[in-house]
């Protein structure tokens, strides 16, 4: 005779009773990271004493920044106009060059012999910080805005090129197939099948890149590649901290303005 209670639960092997995985590899990795952080702090002479003294210096530095001084406003204006020009030119040429590179690099449109060189170019463009690229271009074309523009064109290709390539790889191939089936040449497949599917996102990338270039253009000036960064660095060296603050405030204002502008552009294009 079978009783209801006799229907025992099936025996589960001990190893499977644990509801969650616990991996010793993850624990070991966390331990190693923590140990390395402590070691690196010691190596870099990062002590509590220095930290406290640093805070003190920082406070004195900040107090010397107030009130911001706009008496050199003409220097500020020239610097910003140049920065703006660097950002716009770099975005324009950067995006223009990104388009063919991204199409060549998209694995759903192109064979391997085209994709890997295009991907290599994009990876190289992303490999270095714009400041380092700017230093290289200063050696090549001399001090000034041209080096800044070239450095940011490279950065733009690295960023827009990569994102655009990924956007193209996500498009619906059904639409491409239909355009191909009409006997359209490749360039027409691109303009009628590929671009309509990605144009909205491309506008988004461009505005984002303009925003990034505006910020970066203030930075490449520090190494002598034109724009407001040069004035900022000079002011630091002359200990004109009140002018430094004036420049910093203006940079914040310009970046915010850039953000509003890109939102506005996105609204026009319905993205």
């Amino acid at each position: 005779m079978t009783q209801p209670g006799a229907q025992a639960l099936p025996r589960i092997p001990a190893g499977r009773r644990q509801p969650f995985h616990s991996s010793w590899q993850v624990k070991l990795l966390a331990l190693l990271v923590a140990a390395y952080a402590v070691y690196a702090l010691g190596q870099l002479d990062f002590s509590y004493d220095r930290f406290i003294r640093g805070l003190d210096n920082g406070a004195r530095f900040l107090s010397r920044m107030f009130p911001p001084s706009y008496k050199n406003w003409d220097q500020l204006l020239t610097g910003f106009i140049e920065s703006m020009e660097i950002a716009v030119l770099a975005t324009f040429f950067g995006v223009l060059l990104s388009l063919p590179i991204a199409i060549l690099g998209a694995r759903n449109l192109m064979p391997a012999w085209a994709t890997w060189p295009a991907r290599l170019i994009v990876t190289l463009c992303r490999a270095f910080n714009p400041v380092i690229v700017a230093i290289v271009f200063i050696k090549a074309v001399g001090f000034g805005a041209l080096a800044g523009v070239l450095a940011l064109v490279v950065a733009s290709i690295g960023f827009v090129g990569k994102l655009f390539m990924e956007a193209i790889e996500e498009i619906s191939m059904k639409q491409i197939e239909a355009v191909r089936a009409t006997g359209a040449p490749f360039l027409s497949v691109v303009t009628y099948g590929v671009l309509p599917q990605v144009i909205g996102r491309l506008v988004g990338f461009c505005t984002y890149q303009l925003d990034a270039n505006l910020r970066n253009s203030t930075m490449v000036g520090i190494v002598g590649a034109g724009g407001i960064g040069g004035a900022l660095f000079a002011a630091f060296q002359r200990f004109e901290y009140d002018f430094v603050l004036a420049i910093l405030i203006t940079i914040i204002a310009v970046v915010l303005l850039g953000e509003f502008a890109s939102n506005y552009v996105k609204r026009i294009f319905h993205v």
Partner: protein
Amino acid sequence: MAVVLSIKGLTKSYKPGVPVLKGIDLDFEERGLTAIIGSSGTGKSTLIRIINRLVDPSDGSILFKGLELSSIEGRHLREARRRIGMVFQEYNLVERLSVMENLLTGRLGYVSPMNAWRRKFPPEDVAHALELLDVIGLADFAHQRADSLSGGQRQRVGIARALMQRPEILLADEPTSSLDPKTSVEIMDLLKSQGVNNGIPVVVNIHDVELARRFADRIVGMTGGRVVFDGPPDQLSDDHLKLIYGGEGWLQ
């Protein structure tokens, strides 16, 4: 009637040793609607896509008005594709383009990329597009974006796009599978009448046996990558359907 398209010994394997098509021999004459029926995965779609080389055949010959399609590449392939209209199951319209732009896509094979980019099409193409919009009953939709249309409307645009090519044969890969029964009948009606009016053969893959019987002049039944029935609809018996789809419970 003259044979327009002649397929001989056609095989296709996506993976080596696993053939999807195992030697297809079919001739299509210059008129009439042929329905290809068969269960899913039996190679109907592959067969129709091999004709305009959206899929490459493994072996065999596809002779289209004296032109061997199975081996051409590049410009010759594009020129051959211009002469073959294709309608897709999921319409495959370019969603963000307008209805008019989608129709003119059918002329891309004849217009230079530069002129296509600048939307400069010959006036007779634009006139033809407007005419076709009337035929498919979407005259007021020229400037609407394709993604704002209903399924039936999209498929009509898909058919109009294929007709814009002034094709010499019209292929349709499951054109009614995503549509309701009433719209399906309308789409089949449109395919049939356009084939007759333009004097071109129409080849349609279709799941729905009743629709096939109603509209086709000829039915080709496929199973397991082979043709097992080829004849007029009134000769298609229940025994044939059992052979094509397997089992019989579904017939009652």
